[in-house]
């Protein structure tokens, strides 16, 4: 019983997904289709089809990096809702580095573009971090508002200074093909970016588990007073965690340009930054599990296109399901293992057994 409950507790994200899919099936029925068929098409298309899986990996790359951009500051109790904006500014920096730097050997230039993109995202995230650290201004509101600023700023850049001559709508010229990221599945769109994301996720996981900075970051989040007492600079942790998070989101934007679209488009991100929040919560703020959750959300997105083509179901149903997923994840947080009635009963039972043990031992001696 106890073990079963603990397993259920750890699987709550999976349960949230199951619940969301169940409610989602009602939505599909409302749209006039068979939910079982629809899900079969969706998941087959997303994970069991070569091209489909490649499409999932393409979506997974920005989702994972954006998810990590949410996970990291949350370890310190800070909400980065600004991944969307950081994606835009990162992509902008990377595109500028790709288009206007003198031609360098391919791999070196790719590396420089990547660093430029990370720098762009980090600088954009530095704004809310500084305001939070030195002025105490709510980072949630600032990051949210900056998203809109970034969106319009990139839109200005690609419809003015950086526009491709004669373009019908705002986009930049194509980057040189020596800068295209290598593909990881032959003949498909799946690019190298997703591997970078996975490496960063694993690195972050190890630092959280074993590293000193992972520990100090968590201390800042759990008890800033204690952290200060222990000589940990709270301000520095706010700034550094936000900048690394911004760099991750900036990479998400960079790889969209270098690996997938090869140009900077106006309004290209379509909410990857916000989906990153879903990825982070679904993973329970665990960077390693973020790999799985981003693959799942990416699969939903790419599978939705297949579902629309095959069965004519609107892709927006996936947005609704994604909304349900995060809502159920939030609900599942209500069940703290210790705080629930069952959790308490289990603790009491343990105590009771211990007391019994002690009593019988007392009698024997």
């Amino acid at each position: 019983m106890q073990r079963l409950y603990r397993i259920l507790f750890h699987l709550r994200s999976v349960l949230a997904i199951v619940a969301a899919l169940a409610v989602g099936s009602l939505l599909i029925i409302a749209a006039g289709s068979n939910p079982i068929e629809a899900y079969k098409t969706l998941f087959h298309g997303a994970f069991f089809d070569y091209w489909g899986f490649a499409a999932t990996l393409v979506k997974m790359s920005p989702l994972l990096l954006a998810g990590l951009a949410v996970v990291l500051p949350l370890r310190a109790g800070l909400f980065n809702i600004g991944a969307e904006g950081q994606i835009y500014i990162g992509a902008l920096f990377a595109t500028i580095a790709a288009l206007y730097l003198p031609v360098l050997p391919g791999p070196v230039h790719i590396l420089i573009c990547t660093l430029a993109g990370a720098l762009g995202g980090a600088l954009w995230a530095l704004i809310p971090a500084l305001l939070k650290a030195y002025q105490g201004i709510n980072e949630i509101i600032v990051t949210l508002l900056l998203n809109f600023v970034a969106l319009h700023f990139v839109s200005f850049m690609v419809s003015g200074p950086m526009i491709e001559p004669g373009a019908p709508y705002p986009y930049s010229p194509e980057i040189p093909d020596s800068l295209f990221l290598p593909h990881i599945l032959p003949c498909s769109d799946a690019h190298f970016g997703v591997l970078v994301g996975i490496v960063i996720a694993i690195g972050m996981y190890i630092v959280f588990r074993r590293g000193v900075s992972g520990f100090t970051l968590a201390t800042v989040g759990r008890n800033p007073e204690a952290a200060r007492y222990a000589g940990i600079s709270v301000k520095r942790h706010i700034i550094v965690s936000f900048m690394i998070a911004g760099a991750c989101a900036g990479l998400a934007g960079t790889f969209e340009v270098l690996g997938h679209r090869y140009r900077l488009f106006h309004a290209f991100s379509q909410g990857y930054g916000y989906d990153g929040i879903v990825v982070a919560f679904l993973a329970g703020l665990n960077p390693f599990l973020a790999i799985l959750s981003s693959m799942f959300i990416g699969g939903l997105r790419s599978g939705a296109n297949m579902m629309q083509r095959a069965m004519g179901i609107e892709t927006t149903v996936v947005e609704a399901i994604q909304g349900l997923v995060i809502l159920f994840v939030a609900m599942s947080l209500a069940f703290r293992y210790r705080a629930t009635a069952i959790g308490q009963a289990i603790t009491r039972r343990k105590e009771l057994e211990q007391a019994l043990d002690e009593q019988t031992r007392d009698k024997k001696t």
Partner: protein
Amino acid sequence: MESLFSLQAITEILSTSLRLSVPLVFAALAGVLSERSGVFNIALEGKILAGAFGAAFGAFLMEDPYSGLVVGMLFGMMAGSILAVLGVTFGVNQIVTGIAINIFVLGITAFLSRIVFGAQANTLRLPGFKAFDFPGLSSIPVVGPVLFGQDLMVYLMFICVGAVFLFLYRTPWGLAVRAVGENPSAVDSAGLSVTKLRYGCVIAAGALAALGGCYLVLSQVFLFSEHMSAGKGFIALAAVILGRWNPVGALCACLLFGFFDALQLRLQFNYQDVPHQFFLMLPYLISILALVGLVGKPRPPAAVGRHYRREAK
């Protein structure tokens, strides 16, 4: 080119300012109410959107704006109830819940609008409220057309500001709400239910924020489009802070934001060689600058965002 300073231009700018600030004011009032009761309300954005969808849904089915208003408020209250149940009863982090509500509403309204309005979603013209003139009063120069030539919801907004103000500062219930945002355990020991007070505020806030969405649909664009709230809930949150958690302060902050928004539209029209994206950025930048440029540190209600558990005193 027409001067920016002619009497007519000023009247137009002020009138547009007021109209653009209406959704912000409703949302900011909602923010004031729920944060005063100690519940951080990042879900304003989602509630505006829920209200907007509800308004379009109601007005579409019944073909009259009043039903839209009622359905919109109901949808907003439903979104508010989610926050109340998860955030107040179950103690899930209020920010997490709020973000979840925003994303959920965004997804579900996008889907439902396709189902309900189908292909005509973007060509539809829903019934809405029309501006009407107060006889006599509306002929006063500048003030007349700005204040007395608007539609029903603008007047409703002023009534709501007054009502929330009187409620918070002149009624025993308002005192209890303010107290519960500062020190819930004191309210609890005085024999009032923290949970009930917070439920009331958060659900009422849902209805208020939804009115902002109703205004967007029923008085401004007469259709529902995906993510039409476009960050207004977040600007309203900035207005709550700028207005120091006071309904009248929030009104002033929203009018200020509305004024800059109207000004940018006007400038966009007058200076067409400046890229319009700069003007689009302006309201968001002004909101951030307003937060940065505050004189003195804002002091939010002490218990905002914290879950109250009786045992853990």
